C-alpha cells in the first residue's frame, strides 16, 4: 500500500508537469488545427531563461520574492517569444496547406533547440536549489515541498485557465475561434488577437512547466524539450486534442500511468507502454477521452 501511494504521489507530480505543457499543445491545436512541435523546445528554453534570470537579474538571490520574480519574468519572456514564433513561423502559412505549417513547426523546433545550444552551450546546466529540500514522512509515504508546490500551483493555474475560457467574454471568443474562425470573424472577433492570446497563455504555462522541470530535476539540457514535448503531446491526444480539460486529465493520467508501469512492471518498459497506450487510444477512441467527434472541416 505504501508503494502504491508513493507511486501515486510520484505520478501526480510528473503528471501535473505534463499537463501544463500539454495545455500549450491543445490550445494551439484547438484554434489553429496545428501541432506546434516547437512547444517542447519552448519549455526547455524557459528553463534556461529562468536560470539566466536567476544568475544575471536576481543576482543569485534565493528569497521567495526572487523565486516568484523568476517565474513571472520567465513567463513574460516566453510569452513574447511565443508571439514572435506565431508571427514569424505560423501566421504567413495560415492559408497554406496544413502540412506546410507542420513542417514550419518542426523547423521552428530545430531553430529553438539549436538556439539554446548556441546561447547556453551543449553542457548540462544545473539549476540552483531554490526550493529548500523539505520532506514530510506520512506513514511511509514521503512527500517533498517541491512536489506540493508543483501540484498545487499546477492545479491553480489549470483552474484559472478553465474559468477564463468558460466564464469570461474573451474566453468565449477563444471558444468561438476554435469552433469556426470565419464565423467568429463575422461576429466581430479579431481572430489574430485570439491566436496571439493563445500563444501567450500556452507559452507562459509551458514556461512554468519548464521551470518546474528545472526545480524538480535540477539538470537541464538543450535537447530535453523533445522528451517532454513528446510526453505532453501524448497527454494532449490522450485527453482529446483541442480540449482544455482533456489536456489536464491526459497529463495527470499519463503521469500516473508512467509511474505505475515504471514501479510495478519495469522502468525500462515505461516508454514502450506509453506508446502502446497512445496506439490503443488512437485505435479505440481517436478523439481522446474527453474529445468530441466533430465533422472534419474541408
Amino acid at each position, binding site marked *: 500500500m505504501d*508503494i502504491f501511494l508513493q*507511486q501515486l504521489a510520484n505520478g501526480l507530480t510528473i503528471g501535473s508537469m505534463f499537463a501544463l505543457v500539454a495545455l500549450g499543445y491543445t490550445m494551439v491545436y484547438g484554434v489553429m488545427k496545428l501541432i506546434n512541435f516547437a512547444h517542447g523546445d519552448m519549455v526547455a528554453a524557459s528553463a534556461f531563461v529562468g536560470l539566466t534570470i536567476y544568475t544575471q537579474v536576481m543576482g543569485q538571490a534565493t528569497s521567495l520574492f526572487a523565486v516568484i520574480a523568476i517565474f513571472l519574468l520567465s513567463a513574460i519572456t516566453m510569452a513574447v517569444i511565443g508571439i514572435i514564433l506565431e508571427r514569424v513561423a505560423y501566421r504567413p502559412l495560415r492559408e497554406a496547406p496544413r502540412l506546410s505549417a507542420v513542417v514550419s513547426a518542426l523547423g521552428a523546433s530545430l531553430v529553438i533547440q539549436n538556439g539554446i545550444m548556441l546561447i547556453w552551450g551543449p553542457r548540462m546546466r544545473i539549476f540552483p*536549489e531554490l526550493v529548500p*529540500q523539505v520532506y514530510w514522512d506520512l506513514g511511509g509515504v514521503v512527500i517533498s515541498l517541491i512536489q506540493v508546490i508543483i501540484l498545487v500551483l499546477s492545479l491553480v493555474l489549470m483552474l484559472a485557465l478553465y474559468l477564463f475560457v468558460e466564464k469570461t467574454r474573451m474566453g468565449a471568443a477563444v471558444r468561438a475561434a476554435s469552433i469556426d474562425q470565419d464565423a467568429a470573424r463575422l461576429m466581430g472577433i479579431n481572430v489574430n488577437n485570439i491566436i496571439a492570446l493563445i500563444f501567450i497563455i500556452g507559452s507562459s504555462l509551458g514556461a512554468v512547466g519548464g521551470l518546474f522541470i528545472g526545480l524538480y530535476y535540477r*539538470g537541464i539540457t538543450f535537447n530535453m524539450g523533445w522528451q517532454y514535448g513528446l510526453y505532453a503531446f501524448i497527454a494532449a491526444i490522450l485527453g482529446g486534442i483541442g480540449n482544455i480539460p482533456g489536456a489536464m486529465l491526459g497529463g495527470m493520467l499519463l503521469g500516473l500511468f508512467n509511474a505505475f508501469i515504471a*514501479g510495478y512492471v519495469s*522502468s525500462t518498459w515505461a516508454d514502450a507502454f506509453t506508446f502502446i497506450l497512445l496506439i490503443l487510444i488512437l485505435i479505440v477512441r481517436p478523439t481522446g477521452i474527453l474529445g468530441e467527434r466533430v465533422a472534419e472541416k474541408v
Partner: protein
Amino acid sequence: MKFGKMMLALAAITLLAVPAFADSHGGTLKVGVQAPITGSYANEGQGIENGVQLLAEQINAKGGVMGKQIEVITCDDQGTAMAAAICAKDLVNKGVKMVIGSYTSTCAEAAQKTYYKAGVLQTSDGTADSLTEKGYWTFLRNSFPNSAEAEFVANYLVNVKKYQRIVVISDFSTYADGLANAAEAAIKKLGGNVVSRDKIKADSQNFTPVLTNIKSKNPDAIFFAGYYSDGGQLRNQQMALGIKADFYGGDANDNPDFVKLAGSAATGAFIVNVPSPDVLPYEIAKSFIADYQKKYGEMPPSIWGLMNIDGMRAIIHAMEQNKSFDTKAAADYLHNMKEPLEGITGQIAFAKDGNRKGGAYVVKKIQADGTYANEYVQ
C-alpha cells in the same frame, strides 16, 4: 573580363591545392580525438580535447615528434554509438595514426573495429572489460578495467563496511551494465546479499518509481554504476524519498556536476574512483595540471582526461623509442615494456591484451561544502 575570370579561377584552384599539397607531403603527425564534445558528457569530452591540444602544443614547441609537428583532428561522437562509428570512419579517412578517446566505453567499443582494420592505435579510458576481450592489438586501455573496480567495491561493501542489504543500480550502457554485473557477481562471491539489481534509463531524469521499489527492500547500501549526470539526480531523489541507505557512486560519478545536481543531498554520498587529479603526487602531473589551468582557466574536469593524455604520451613515447611511426611496432613495444613510463596518473605499462597494468582505488565521502574527504584508500 574573360581574362579576369580566368585568373580568379586559377587563384581559386591554387588556394584549394595548397593545403592538399601540404597534406600529401605528410609534414605532420595526425592525432585524432574522438570524444563527446556535445551531449550529456560534453564536460568530459571537452576535457579530453583540451588536454590533447595542450600536450600537442607542448610537444610541437619542443620540435614535434621526430621532427614532425602534431596535428590534432577532433571528431565529436556526442556520447552515442552511432556518431562514434561515423567518427571512426571519418578519422581513419583523414589519415590519423592514433585516436585518443572516447570517454565512454560504448563509444570506444563502437569505433574499435574500424580502427583495428585500419591499423590505427586507439587509447581510451573506457573501463568496460569487453573492450580488451576482442584481441584487437590496436586498442590500449589507459584506465583500469571494471572488474578491478568491481572487486574493490565488493570487498569494501561486504568485508570492510559489512552491509547486509545491498542494491546495485546501473543504466544500459556498456560501461555501467558491465561494472554493475561484475560488482553484483563479486559481492555474491564474497557472501554478500544483493537484495535488488535495478536498471535506469540514462537521461530520463525521473528515477523515483525505481527508487520507490528499492525503498520497500529496505537496503543499507546502494551502489550506482553509471554517469554523474544521472548519479546526482539519483542521489537527490533517493534522499527525497527518505531512503536512508549509504550511496556509493562508481568512478564515472566523480565529476563536480554530481555535487551540483544532488545539491544538499550530496552530503554523505560516497564516490569510488582512482585518485583524483588534484591529489596526484607526481611532478609531471603537477606541472601538466598547472599548464592546463593557465591555458583554460579551470581544472581538468576529472582524471579521465588525464588518463587519455597518458595514453597519448605512451604511444608517442613508443614511436620515439622505435624511431618509427609504424603503429604495429608501437603496439608491440607498449605490450612488452620493460620499464614503465612515468605518467601523469602514475606509471604506465600495458599487458598483452591492451589493459593498463596496476590500479588503486579510493572511497571518497562528499562533505557538506561539496569537497571530498578520503574515507578509504586501497
